[in-house]
């Protein structure tokens, strides 16, 4: 039977052409290699060169890693075990593991407290990161800062409860007055919170911390990777809302607000973070009342937050500028007021555009938390440079320790970057 009617003009297929397997060279690894690695002579050459480069890198490092010593009490002991063969001395990681994670002053019997806070952190951020989860979980997210504070610092439970009550009171006042005018609600809320904290502070008995259920741990005893995580999480979650406020303020039609925001952003962006941290460690104390001991952790948080908020504000400003004017006009013409238009129409779109930029700042911020080692806080890098490398046992194990620190930071930053790519795909609704 022929495929076509030779005598008619129109074409009608009567028989199906049977499905056939593709020729061998067009499938499988051979095809892949031919197309991707050896497509042209130049391509083949590059492949060979790249393979050689990979070999050069792996040849010394692989044995070094695979031959690594995991249990020993000092570098000298490592060397003894290795007997001149190449091999890493990972024993420092196992032996100093708690110090790397929690610093050298955090009481070892209390390690469960920050560990628990760390686990709860995932529960708390889940509904923020994955908005398909039930919204009720956000209640826990709201409570988490107070729980985490209580777990990590311990002391009397009145402090986090008072903080929480202050926030709730402030919010209630804000809700009550915001219908009148935003400014009244905003400043009323802040005033109410401050008032509650002040009165509450007088009510908390003096010795409450000594005989508290959880032993108090002062800020200066925090350290290790825990400190980096705490700074990173706190500063990122504070600097995003502040950044949004600054970006909107910079666009504001009210000259005073606009000038304040512009000056703040430009000033902070023009100063190196290290400088701000030094200011935090020595000078900021002058700005607070003389007898108040605002602890170093809080001062550092303020500085890093201001720094990254300024950057995030600029990123978001870019997102705002990318929105067509028609979106503002459509929102206005429907009768939405300014806060509604921003919250429902403008910010969701502007923030979506800004995700890559915000993530960029967040990743940078997280890595910059190691700078606190310069102002003698013992974060992961501070621990490595200070107590560990300076000890007689482990003097000289740079590669293993710094490699480990890099790996930890890489894992977290890579995770953030993967999340942001997922988020961008998830939010892609414009179907352009």
């Amino acid at each position, binding site marked *: 039977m022929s495929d076509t009617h030779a005598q008619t003009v129109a074409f009608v297929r009567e028989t199906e052409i049977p499905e056939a397997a593709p020729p061998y060279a067009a499938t499988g690894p051979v095809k892949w290699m031919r197309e991707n690695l050896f497509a042209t002579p130049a391509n083949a050459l590059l492949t060979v060169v790249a393979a050689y480069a990979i070999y050069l890198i792996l040849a010394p490092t692989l044995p070094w890693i695979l031959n690594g010593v995991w249990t020993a009490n000092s570098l000298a002991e490592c060397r003894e075990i290795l007997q001149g063969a190449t091999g890493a001395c990972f024993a420092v990681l196992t032996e100093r593991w708690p110090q790397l994670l929690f610093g050298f002053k955090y009481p070892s019997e209390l390690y469960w407290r920050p560990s628990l806070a760390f686990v709860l952190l995932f529960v708390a951020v889940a509904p923020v990161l994955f908005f398909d989860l039930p919204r009720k979980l956000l209640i826990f997210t709201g409570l988490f800062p107070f729980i985490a504070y209580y777990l990590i610092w311990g002391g009397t439970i009145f402090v986090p409860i008072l903080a929480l009550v202050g926030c709730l009171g402030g919010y209630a006042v804000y809700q009550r007055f915001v219908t009148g005018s935003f400014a009244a609600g905003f400043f009323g809320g802040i005033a109410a919170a401050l008032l509650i904290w002040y009165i509450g502070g007088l009510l908390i008995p003096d010795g409450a911390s000594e005989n508290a259920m959880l032993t108090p741990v002062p800020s200066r005893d925090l350290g290790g990777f825990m400190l980096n995580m705490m700074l990173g999480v706190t500063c990122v979650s504070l600097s995003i809302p502040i950044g949004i406020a600054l970006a909107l303020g910079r666009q504001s039609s009210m000259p005073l607000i606009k000038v304040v925001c512009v000056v703040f952003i430009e000033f902070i962006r023009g100063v190196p973070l290290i400088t701000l941290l030094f200011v935090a460690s020595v000078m900021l104390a002058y700005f607070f009342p003389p007898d108040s001991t605002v602890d170093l952790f809080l001062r550092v948080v303020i500085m890093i937050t201001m720094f990254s908020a300024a950057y995030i504000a600029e990123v978001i400003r870019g997102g705002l500028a990318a929105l*067509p004017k*028609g*979106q503002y*006009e*459509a929102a*206005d*013409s*429907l*009768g*939405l*007021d300014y806060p*509604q238009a921003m919250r*429902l*129409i403008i910010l*969701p*779109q502007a923030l*979506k555009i800004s995700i890559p930029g915000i993530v960029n700042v967040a990743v940078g911020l997280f890595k910059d938390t190691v700078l606190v080692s310069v102002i003698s806080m013992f974060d992961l890098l501070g621990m490595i440079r200070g107590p560990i490398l300076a000890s007689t046992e482990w003097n000289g194990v740079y590669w293993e320790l710094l490699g480990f620190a890099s790996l930890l930071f890489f894992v977290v930053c890579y995770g953030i970057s993967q999340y942001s790519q997922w988020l961008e795909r998830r*939010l892609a*609704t*414009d*179907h*352009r």
Partner: protein
Amino acid sequence: MAEHATQMQVSDEIAITISKMNKWYGTFHVLRDIDLTVNRGERIVICGPSGSGKSTLIRCINALEEHQQGSIEVDGTLLSSDLKNIDKIRSEVGMCFQHFNLFPHLTILENCTLAPIWVRKTPKKEAEETAMHFLEKVKIPDQAMKYPGQLSGGQQQRVAIARSLCMRPRIMLFDEPTSALDPEMIKEVLDTMIELAEEGMTMLCVTHEMGFARQVANRVIFMDAGQIVEQNEPEAFFNNPQSPRTQLFLSQILGH
């Protein structure tokens, strides 16, 4: 067609009064001494050469642009810089734009329910019912769960009309609603607008669709250089234009 237009009722009640209104962009005098009274149920078509200030005029009516002199009164509310008044007027006045301006991050249904829920405080369920009612009216209820980017231009413009209608406005403003559309989509949008006119909606429409003007308008306004040069009933306006500028304009757009 003329008797078609007269079927539709125009009441004596006044919807919009604009008197001695002037507007400047910087030092550029865009609108000069505009006087216009619109009765409830009137369908007014505004035409004129590009840059004559048509868009600016209707955008002043819902305060998307502010005017510097004279007064605008919509539904008895005087437009001033008082934000309360502005929001009140905006929720009474619907507006459709040349480029639709749908919210791309929300579904069609959410586009339609957003303002009723947040501005009118309508319960969500009720707002959704209203939205579906108007989406049926513009003949796209089956697209409710899609995003604006997935719709054709004509469909998007009809959604934009439905979105405005969901606020149950008493006045609708249209700024060249069909000029970004392909010819075959223009008809579906115009049909929707004609239906709206037949139901007695007060409409101000900037358009160059002269067929539409003849069919539904009860008054055509010609603007040039920021002034109202001529206004008349459609028959008289098209067949017997008075001012030379109107004659020139009509010969240009009807000539080919």
